[in-house]
């Protein structure tokens, strides 16, 4: 258990010294995962709402597929994005392999299904509850989708946070498409993997403690701000 106390000591030390390398890594981690979760929300929430409201052939199959895609293995996603973005790949011309944008692409693919599937579930429940009232008022399907998204906004936040949690914590995809290059594509999880393989267990654990703390902080912030907003809207 000595590693544990050392880990906390090194975590405290890193934070107390405001270690520039640590700050860089934390910043990049947040930048990549917040970008990915924003894009995933922009895609996933409308897609989930559409999946909840529109009836079309093959809908059930699509719902099952999206649900299953919540469990996509990060390494496999990383590998696919790697193949797409590598020089000889179809998107090789973009030249973004081993850059932060590549990591954003990989994480977006990883978490968009999570946001979509959870949004679908939330909005479908709400639609069941409100559909008669909205149809009675003469609300068309497109407007209904917008109304439902607005009605479900606080519950959708949980879907987005689930996506963020997955993005900030995953290592496989960012490692493969980012390459863990120091000062360039090194994020918290890849740094932890690297330090572990170098045998710096205390430092690795210390970074782990900071990762969990950052994740906790983001969730607490969102919870607090939505709580205040909720009180004002009485939702």
């Amino acid at each position: 258990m000595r590693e544990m106390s050392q880990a906390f000591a090194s975590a405290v030390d890193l934070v107390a010294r405001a270690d520039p390398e640590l700050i860089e890594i934390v910043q990049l981690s947040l930048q990549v995962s917040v970008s990915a979760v924003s894009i995933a929300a922009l895609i996933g929430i409308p897609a989930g709402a559409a999946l909840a409201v529109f009836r079309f052939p093959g809908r059930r199959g699509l719902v099952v597929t999206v649900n299953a895609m919540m469990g996509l293995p990060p390494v496999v996603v990383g590998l696919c994005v790697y193949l797409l973005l590598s020089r000889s790949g179809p998107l090789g011309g973009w030249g973004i392999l081993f850059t932060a944008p590549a990591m954003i692409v990989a994480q977006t693919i990883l978490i968009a299904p999570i946001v979509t599937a959870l949004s679908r579930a939330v909005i479908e429940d709400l639609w069941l509850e409100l559909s008669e009232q909205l149809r009675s008022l003469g609300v068309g399907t497109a407007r209904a989708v917008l109304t439902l998204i607005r009605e479900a906004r606080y519950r959708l936040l949980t879907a987005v946070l689930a996506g963020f949690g997955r993005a900030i914590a995953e290592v496989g995809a960012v490692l493969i498409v980012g390459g863990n290059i120091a000062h360039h594509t090194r994020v918290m999880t890849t740094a932890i993997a690297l330090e572990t393989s170098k045998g710096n267990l205390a430092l690795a654990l210390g970074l782990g403690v900071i990762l969990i703390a950052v994740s906790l902080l983001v969730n607490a912030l969102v919870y607090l701000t939505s709580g205040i907003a909720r009180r004002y809207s009485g939702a």
Partner: protein
Amino acid sequence: MARPAIEDQIAIPAGGPSIQPLVLRDLCFSAGGRVLLDRINLVLAAGVRTVMLGPNGAGKSLLLRICHGLISPSSGTVEWMGPGAREARVRQAMVFQRPMLLRRSVFANVDYALAVRRLPKALRTSRAWTALEVTGLAGLAERPAGVLSGGEQQRVALARAWALNPEVLFLDEPTANLDPAATRAVEEAIAGIALGGTKIVMTTHDLGQARRLAEEIVFLHGGRLVERRPAAEFFAEPEHDAARAFLHGELLW
């Protein structure tokens, strides 16, 4: 939000020619092999307050939803036959057993319904205020709808329906979840709306409520229309055994 003075308010347009009567012919509805409505023939005309009465499972709510156009019958027809029938979709409104309000202010809930009808903003605002005043809710306009009591919420639902200036208002057990005081407030609001010339069609299994509000009773039992008569006659002397049993509080299914 500034409340416009009463004299500034635009009178609510009376609407075009009537969409009524509503004519149901040989209307049937079945689901899962069970016949839930069986050959209903009914004409609902303007004027009187119609109450659909019957025990649970009689098909009242289903029939109301079919009348409103939320559900299509399995067979038979439901048709607005008035000269304004083309406008039927926007000339009716419905209040459900649960208020089903949106998570926004009381005012915004009423305004939403008017925005769906594409009314200009100024007209929407004045009409929403009038609706809230008529239902005694003007003081709660800025409050989030979710924090109101059940009775107040149901009155917001009524205000929302009233703001649409419907020629016909359907109400499905609007007081089923309310205490006696709230029930009374809602009943008063319904009576007030009827006084304005709106045709009321409501369901209830509450005999007291039917006595207070109905001018005409449509009694349903087991998916069939058993009796349809002026309320006073119905309550004095029901023709059918099922209706008599129901009035005497003997449960029937």
